[in-house]
């Protein structure tokens, strides 16, 4: 039986994201789980492990798709600079200084 490489993801506490921990090498699922437990769970540092055959992972790292050279600021909260507009709007409404910072102001 040939060994395979298995990637291990660990969850540190209930509700936390599954975080990649590293990998183990094992001939089958049963041993892969045992090794994962030994290397990524023996100090009570995990409440859950995911063990996935490396060749089952699909990878996408194409910068043309993931980091396109176009302005994507409209997709992020920081792309909206409202401080001065908010001040102007308050002045027109005659409510300056009563509304606090408001969300989105840096």
């Amino acid at each position, binding site marked *: *039986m040939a060994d395979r*490489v298995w990637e291990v993801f660990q969850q540190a506490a209930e509700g936390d994201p599954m975080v990649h*921990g*590293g990998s*183990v*090498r094992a001939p089958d699922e049963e041993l892969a789980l045992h090794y994962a437990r*030994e*290397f990524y769970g*023996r*100090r009570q540092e995990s409440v859950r492990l995911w063990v996935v055959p490396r060749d089952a992972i699909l990878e996408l790292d194409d910068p043309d798709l993931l980091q396109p050279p176009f302005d994507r600021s409209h997709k992020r909260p920081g792309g909206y600079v409202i401080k001065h507009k908010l001040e102007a709007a308050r002045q027109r409404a005659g409510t300056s200084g009563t509304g606090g910072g408001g969300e989105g102001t840096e």
Partner: protein
Amino acid sequence: MTDTARAEAFYTHVGSGGKVEADDWMPDDYRAAVLKFVEMHANSELMGVLPERDWILRAPTLRRKLALTSKIQDEVGHAQLLYRVAEDLGKPREQMLADLLAGKTKFHNVFHYPTRSWGDVGIIAWLVDAAAIVSQQALRDSSYAPYGRTMKKICWEESVHIMHGRDVVLTLMTGTEGQRSMVQEALDRWWGPLMQMHGPPTDPVTDRDLIWQIKSKGNEQLRQEFLDIYVPRIWELGLTVPDAALHRDEATGRWQYTEPDWDELRSVVTGHGPASQSRLEFRRLHRAETQWVRDAVLGVAA
């Protein structure tokens, strides 16, 4: 792009703090350098448990026995993690073990020496692990990202070992005169190997591991950091460092010390240390005696 241009772009990338993943393209020189570095580290973790293994049965209390056993399990685990990183670079694990057992590849100098007393166990767990963690912390930033990530996990576990070692030393230092001198004698034995452990200073202009940021700090810088933190902690216990020349130069902030014996270092790491051959022989014996386990696990017909 030609291979040369591709390699130049790669070296610019790593030289300016860029990271490399296991299946990224990399020049053969870089791959070979990372492999050699990680393989030696893995070998050291595997061989490093043997001096401590001798003390499991002789540990003075049950809690010490548990802590020592757990530390040994951790170090073997580190070897497993590091061999995993190394085998992704193209060298099979079986080949790495065969080369180690045949004396073709190296492991750290400090694991070529015998242990004489429980004081040695304390000094190893405290100061050898401390010297190791200083260099391992610097490796968390390695340009080879799978190595850097593994070092983050390992450093966290090593910090437990240092506390265990410091606790062993403090217990002895608050004990009888005999126990205090046991620690002093252990420090006398281990100081030379400790000062050699980070290796002789290298030239940052020609040290490829440094230029390619496989490691982020030079040997002398690591030794200075180790001395900075640990010499005051040794002194405050009333221990004497066996080097009359050791002092911190207040003007430069650098530690001055007697030149470590680099000939001894070279001789020891090439298999001529006092315990080099007995340790390798033990590993060979152990590997042969456990062959049936691997065969059974892998379903090899008897």
